[in-house]
């Protein structure tokens, strides 16, 4: 690809005025700046969130307490405590349950759409899944609050329907579209020659999927799952409304929990700028940023690894 793109260079400005050439230089400079803007934005997000919490992080943050204590009591008069373990476990439990739902469904649908449908059906299914992704998270939260809550109470005889299960189902459905679309791309990217070779050996379509396509596409599928995980960890409003918002370490899917994201969303407005509480929330922001960064970076590296292999 690289060599096709080479332009001979800007030496032949045939019959063009000096201003036209200068204008072009300016335009190209702007394009370059915009091209690198994403780096600038990611970097400044990290920097701003980090700096806003820096005073607290440097002087008063007990990193052991922050990561390992389950006690989050930022507004206590007598004994303020900034432990995020219950919140982190809240995030992980909801995300984990979401993946239990989203991974089999997402990969199953990806295989079905990619290998067992064609033409119109395929197009329609892809559109529907894209539309599923388009439902705003506040609408999911609303569904969790008014529909899933009474449903869970009735079905599981649970005392309260705002819990890990509720949030997990919502997040599962929210992450499925990513897993389907990236997963389908990954399966589609396996060269047709693999399929043909497998079929020629007498394998059925399903045998081809299990023994040839899934192993060949495994990195892409893993990346799809990771991106789904990233989406689930970062989701805010839906889990804020659907998980019950209770600071406790969950012991069953029917326990209410509070997530890292929901904590920031519900408490950010309240705190005086620069107070410990305010900075502690930004520190949670850094934690979230780091978590999703690692997840997305791994997904990206895995995808790139695949492209490298295929070359």
């Amino acid at each position, binding site marked *: *690809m690289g060599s*096709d793109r080479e332009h*001979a260079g800007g030496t*032949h400005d045939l019959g063009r005025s000096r201003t036209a050439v200068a204008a072009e230089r300016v335009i*190209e400079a702007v*394009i370059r700046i*915009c*091209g*690198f*803007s*994403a*780096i600038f*934005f*990611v*970097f*400044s*997000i990290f920097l*701003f*969130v980090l700096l*806003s919490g820096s005073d607290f992080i440097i002087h008063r943050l007990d990193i052991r307490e922050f990561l390992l204590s389950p006690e989050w009591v930022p507004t206590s008069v007598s004994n303020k405590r900034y432990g995020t373990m219950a919140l982190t476990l809240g995030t992980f439990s909801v995300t984990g349950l979401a993946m239990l739902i989203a991974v089999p*469904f997402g990969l199953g649908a990806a*295989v*079905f759409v990619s290998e*067992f449908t064609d033409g119109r059906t395929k*197009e329609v299914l892809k*559109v*529907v899944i*894209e539309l599923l992704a*388009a*439902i*705003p*998270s*506040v*609408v999911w*939260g*609303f569904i969790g*609050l*008014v529909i899933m809550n009474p449903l869970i109470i009735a079905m599981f005889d649970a005392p309260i329907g705002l819990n890990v299960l509720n949030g997990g189902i919502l997040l599962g459905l929210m992450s*499925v579209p990513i897993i389907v679309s990236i997963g389908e791309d990954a399966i589609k990217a396996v060269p047709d020659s693999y399929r043909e070779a497998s079929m020629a050996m*007498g394998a*059925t379509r*399903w045998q081809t999927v299990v023994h040839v396509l899934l192993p060949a596409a495994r990195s892409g599928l893993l990346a799809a799952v990771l*991106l789904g995980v990233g989406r689930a960890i*970062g*989701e*805010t*409003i839906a889990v804020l*409304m659907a998980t019950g918002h209770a600071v406790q370490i969950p012991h069953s899917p029917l326990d209410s929990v509070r997530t890292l*994201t929901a904590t*920031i*969303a519900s408490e*950010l*407005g309240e705190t005086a*700028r620069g107070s410990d509480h305010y900075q502690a929330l*930004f520190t949670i922001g850094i934690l979230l*940023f780091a978590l*999703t960064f690692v*997840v997305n*970076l791994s997904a*990206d590296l895995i995808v790139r690894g695949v492209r490298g292999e295929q070359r």
Partner: protein
Amino acid sequence: MNAALPFSTTDVTRTNRRRESIVRALLGIVTALLVLPLLAILALLVKHGAPALTLDFLLSSPAAGMTAGGIFPAIVGTLWLVGVSLAIAAPIGVLAAIYLNEYAGDHWGTRIVNLAIVNLAGVPSIVHALFGVGAFVLFLHLGTSILSASLTLAIMTLPVIIASTKEALAAVPMSFRQACWVLGASRWQTIRYVVLPNSIQGILTGVILQVSRAAGETAPVMFTGAAFYLPFLPQSVNDQCMALSMHLFTLSTQVPGVPEALPYATALVLVGLVMSVNLTSILLRSYLRSRRRW
């Protein structure tokens, strides 16, 4: 397997065929189970929301402590947020995609840019909100305003525009560019007169997708520009505004005595808006794909 002779139906192939149809049915059910929630949600929203969805609801302000009246200021606010964030994100996103597709070589700098875009897309929306508060509301002294909220939304939705614009640009065959270069055109002239005209509709689909993303977000606008209630419509980007997503959140969690139909109707309007925008983008894209001549 190896016992099966070629070209004859054996027990093995019959078993396989049966197994195949079972698997196909199972996978079909799994996929259908994903379609089901979408239909169920739409049906529920329509069932409970449609009765309250009158022209008056769309065109009047909330009244009686939000327990009556309509959502007009929220619709207007969402249009402001979407419009301003689009005006910021579209040029930057399109130019960034032009850089990545037309200028950037295959080196580490490009890799880092791509990585940054992937991560920008992965940053949780609430972290974008923290950034918006830290950078725009406080550091740049823009206050809680449409401008702050739109800037936050713009950065958040930038990857959507970059990704789809890149796809649109990449769909223009290399031979078009080469033909143009051979005639002595510069790189920018080629982009301006050949690449962009041939990809502009594809770029448009990405821009439309950005609109749908921006309209649906709640967390990033909550602390940067959206208000619980405003008795007037915003006059400039320095004002606060109401927003549909935020309004649904407050209606369903904070306002007492709201008739059941009100949040449903608000959700219906929000979903209707986002979905129709999305559907437009999807249809436009598939139309373009079918019409492509190369």
